């Protein structure tokens, strides 16, 4: 009767079981191979967590007549995930399946970091004190709506500044950590706003970024 060793499925044969030695070594080698390969896969998964980075390959103009733009990004710089996509027409980054679609691409449950940055400059004159704002919204449409919102917003990081006509461009950055624990897809929306009434505002090509990175699974901490 072989004796079990440890908790990785390894065992050793009985002392007089010489005929089984070759088969035993094959089985032992295979089990060691499998156990190590599984450990290596976990480690390599930690070294390369799913992530997606977006940018704008072309300059974007925010008009004085339409001061908020939510379709800034048009280029995926890198996407190491199998479950995050960006819909440039909608201006929405999906973690998991798209909103309203069947859940065919489940996301990894756990902690994520979302963030963005952009620079914007008035094309001409500046309305002193006019606001520049960058905001993200992480939305799970399957969560119960929170009054008065019609959808469940997990996080809304915002950076806002007033242009005092000091010259040059204004830069804004936002970052937030979120916990996703459900099944249906989550949307990450962005809005870049300029309330400069004196002239349009431009976001130069390659000066806006948005990213999502998976940090790993985590237990849900319930606060009484």
């Amino acid at each position: 009767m072989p004796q079990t060793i440890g908790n990785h499925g390894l065992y050793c044969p009985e002392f007089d079981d010489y005929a089984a030695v070759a088969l035993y070594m094959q089985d032992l080698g295979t089990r060691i191979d499998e156990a190590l390969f599984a450990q290596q896969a976990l480690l390599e998964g930690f070294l390369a967590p799913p992530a997606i980075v977006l940018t704008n390959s072309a300059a974007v103009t925010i008009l004085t007549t339409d001061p908020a733009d939510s379709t800034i990004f048009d280029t995926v710089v890198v996407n190491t995930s199998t479950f995050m996509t960006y819909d440039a027409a909608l201006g929405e980054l999906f973690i998991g399946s798209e909103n309203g679609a069947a859940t065919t691409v489940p996301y990894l449950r756990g902690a994520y970091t979302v963030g963005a940055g952009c620079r914007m400059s008035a094309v001409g004159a500046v309305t002193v004190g006019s606001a520049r704002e960058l905001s993200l919204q992480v939305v799970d449409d399957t969560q119960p709506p929170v009054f008065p919102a019609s959808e469940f917003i997990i996080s809304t990081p915002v950076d806002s500044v007033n242009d005092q006509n000091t010259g040059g461009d204004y830069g804004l950055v936002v970052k937030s950590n979120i916990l996703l624990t459900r099944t249906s897809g989550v949307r990450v929306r962005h809005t870049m706003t300029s309330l400069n009434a004196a002239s349009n505002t431009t976001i130069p090509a390659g000066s806006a970024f948005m990213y999502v990175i998976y940090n790993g699974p985590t237990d849900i901490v319930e606060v009484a």
Partner: protein
Amino acid sequence: MPGFTPNYGIEYPCAGEVISPAVFQTFADDVEAALASVDAVSASVLARPRAAIRDSGTSIAFGAMTALTFDSTDFDNGMTAAAAGFTIPSNGLYMIDLELGSNTIPTTVTSWAGAILLAGTVMYKRKISETSSTPPAPNNDELNLSGLVSATAGNAVTFQFGWTGTGINLVVTARASISKLCDL
């Protein structure tokens, strides 16, 4: 004719082969090599490239964005930290943070800005406007910014500060940190 396991090539005897001590030695050597290869990955996980550097005070005149110069290293694990910033050691996604502060009180301050540059290109910038032309003392301003960059080995990560207003130079203190999050 020996056989080999699929992932690490651990050699084992097949039925009918003579099993000598050399067979056991080869088996053990192969297992050792497999362990060593996983050890190498494990070491990478335990020692992700990350570093932080500090600037105890750079005198910067109002006007253009100016490169920051760092004079000490808080820690450096697998990065190349220098006075100008960091050098990316390997392709990947990196989270970079910049903290800025100053106690200097010039005549007027109308804006503050910090920037994170990759290979000379501004990736993230944060600029704030002063609502008061004469900032209070001490610690009249702080500014933090951070961002994720997709970088390749050898890229330089540098930092800038700029302000508008009038009066004496601002002496700016800064701390920059970087952490590799993902291989590419």
